[in-house]
């Protein structure tokens, strides 16, 4: 997937002026925020489950090598194959190899953010394969030739009318505007694809070490059709997604849907363990799992290890007011919102990702809903520290910080400077109580006035009135 994070600022401003996008984003609140709050409130055990989930993830991360070995052994025993990929290129090579061996022409895909990380579609299409995204949201944006803008609702930025236009153009059928009719049309078109694809690629929300199962959680059932009807099933997942046992997994099943969509459970939770067994009359003949590292192992033991607990539920972005203002595309890569602002610099590197951790008010709403209690604001701040140390902080800001520190470390000078400053500002306000513009304005007065100081500092007045009590 194209990397456009360096353009964050311009794309964010563009998004703010995109009326369709703004309309679509306003649906997020009723759709996700309210429902999640209800789901959490209806379950007395919810907070304790979040603690347990975080503990289980921490336990896995501390023993990741062992659980991966266990998982791999179980998959192999079930007749499947586990492939390890150090980075996106490695993963593409592995998957292209499997598709070639399978003599594939058509490939169906369930939603997989890891495959986006691999830029898999581009690679497959480049080799001449027909690639069909089957998750309705992914299908819509594939028709629009756009990347996903949300990790669980990839087409959240599209309005119904835009979908109608895309379908009318792609399907050669009369334009429909009724939602049910649109869904039915996609169903009909995609059905044909499931039955004729040689390879089906899905993600893997969880990998169970005990059984060697990959688990996907969906509402549409597209992942099931994708993986059941193709001859070869390829699972793409991250090395951190392994869970020890089915009992551990149950904890995550209880928090994932509630956090993601506010549902008690999604319609389908599907476990896949190896290929078709002797006597089975359906199911894939081959089963492969491609486990992607792509920077994950480097997070282990670092100050960012907590990020590896992420279960990709999307709650952090649903509750992020910055995401809610600009949508997912502005972030410029696979993962938007708070979790993406941590992950993108860690995976893609610090270059070109400066804005992501900075375009955040550190308001903490993301952390307050994260089911695995990732301290997202702290991690974002930690990336800012690394940027500062790498000398990536803009020069002007660095100089300002330097000056501010120099003065703030000298209380007498500081208070003297503040006294001068407030007098200047107060006189500039000229009795109006506010300033419409400022010399050397760092960006304050573009959209707001500056309420003017009254002309004396608090300390100055306090000392005059009370002495140093």
């Amino acid at each position: 997937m194209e990397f456009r994070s360096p353009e964050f600022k311009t794309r964010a401003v563009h998004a703010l002026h995109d009326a369709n996008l703004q309309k679509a984003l306003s649906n997020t609140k009723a759709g996700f925020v309210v429902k999640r709050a209800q789901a959490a409130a209806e379950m007395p055990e919810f907070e304790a489950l979040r603690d347990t989930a975080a503990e289980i993830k921490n336990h896995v991360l501390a023993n990741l090598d062992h659980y991966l070995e266990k998982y791999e052994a179980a998959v192999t025993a079930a007749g499947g194959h586990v492939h390890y990929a150090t980075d996106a290129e490695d993963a593409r090579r592995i998957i292209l190899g499997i598709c070639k061996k399978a003599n594939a022409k058509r490939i169906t895909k369930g939603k997989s953010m890891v495959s986006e990380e691999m830029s898999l579609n581009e690679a497959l299409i480049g080799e001449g394969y027909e690639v069909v995204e089957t998750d309705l949201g992914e299908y819509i944006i594939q028709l629009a030739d756009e990347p996903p803008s949300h990790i669980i609702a990839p087409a959240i930025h599209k309005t119904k009318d835009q979908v109608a236009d895309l379908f009318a153009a792609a399907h050669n059928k009369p334009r429909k505007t009724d939602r049910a009719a649109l869904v039915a049309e996609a169903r009909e078109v995609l059905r044909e694809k499931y039955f004729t694809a040689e390879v089906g690629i899905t993600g893997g929300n969880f990998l169970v070490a005990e059984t060697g199962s990959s688990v996907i959680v969906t509402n549409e059932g597209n992942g099931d059709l994708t993986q059941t009807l193709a001859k070869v099933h390829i699972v793409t997942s991250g090395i951190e997604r392994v869970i020890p046992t089915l009992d551990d997994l149950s904890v995550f099943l209880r928090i994932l849907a509630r956090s993601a969509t506010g549902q008690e459970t999604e319609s389908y939770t599907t476990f896949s363990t190896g290929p078709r067994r002797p006597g089975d009359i359906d199911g894939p003949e081959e089963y492969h799992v491609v486990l992607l590292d792509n920077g994950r192992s480097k997070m282990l033991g670092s100050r960012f290890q907590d990020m590896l607990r992420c279960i990709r539920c999307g709650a952090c972005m649903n509750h992020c007011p910055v995401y809610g203002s600009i949508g997912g595309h502005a972030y410029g890569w696979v993962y938007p919102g708070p979790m993406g602002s941590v992950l993108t610099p860690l995976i893609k590197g610090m270059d070109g990702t400066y804005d992501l951790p900075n375009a955040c008010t550190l308001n903490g709403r993301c952390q307050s809903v994260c089911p695995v209690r990732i301290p997202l604001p702290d991690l974002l701040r930690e990336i800012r520290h690394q940027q500062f140390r790498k000398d990536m902080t803009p020069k002007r800001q660095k100089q300002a910080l330097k000056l501010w520190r120099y003065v703030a470390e000298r209380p007498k000078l500081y208070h003297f400077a503040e006294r001068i400053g407030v007098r200047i500002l107060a006189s500039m306000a000229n009795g109006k109580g506010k300033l419409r513009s400022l010399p050397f304005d760092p960006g304050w007065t573009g959209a707001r006035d500056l309420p003017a100081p009254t002309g004396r500092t608090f300390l100055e007045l306090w000392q005059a009135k009370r002495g140093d009590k």
Partner: protein
Amino acid sequence: MSSRDTIFKAIRQGLGRGPLDDAARAKLDARIAEPPQHIRATVDDADLVARFAQRFESRSGTTERIASLADVPAAVAALAESYAIAPSAVVGTALGELAWPEGWQIDHGAATIDVMLGVSLAWRGIAETGSILMLSGPERPITHNFVPETHVVVLPVEHLVRHYEDCWVALREAGQGAPRAMNFISGPSRTGDVEQTIELGAHGPRRMHVLILG
């Protein structure tokens, strides 16, 4: 070095240790063999069937109580008639002994693209969420659960349990390991991908009906 080796090395480097010693591995293996039991959702309902039905119906599924396995064909036929579905269905051999009314075409094979109705036997039902658990196998083709537009599931009450975890106990007791596919199904296929408004029948069944048996 293979990618696998590179990754394992990096993991251990990150964790600041070499491969785990035998004692540590044994401890982790014991954790898998005897999985710790975590907090669950409280399910204190006296009537599990009622809870199951209420939850399943809350997601647009429908349920019906039947007294015996022999009642299945009539219930399916009535449903088919009310939705104007032709008298033809895919049925796993797990339900192979049923006597279908005259005129019904029953196929035990995998579901093909034009199949409109599937009838399956649930392996377990979960009261907590109102979900059913399907296991794959020669007698229970997995395509029956996803391809037909209407899916009817027979759930014997003795197989209705409280929690997910009860399924794992049963699965371990069965001693076969995990089947190729296990599906928790909690209602008809749905999507919210067009303006976050729920539509049923995105790809999988548009209608799901559970016949609670017993």
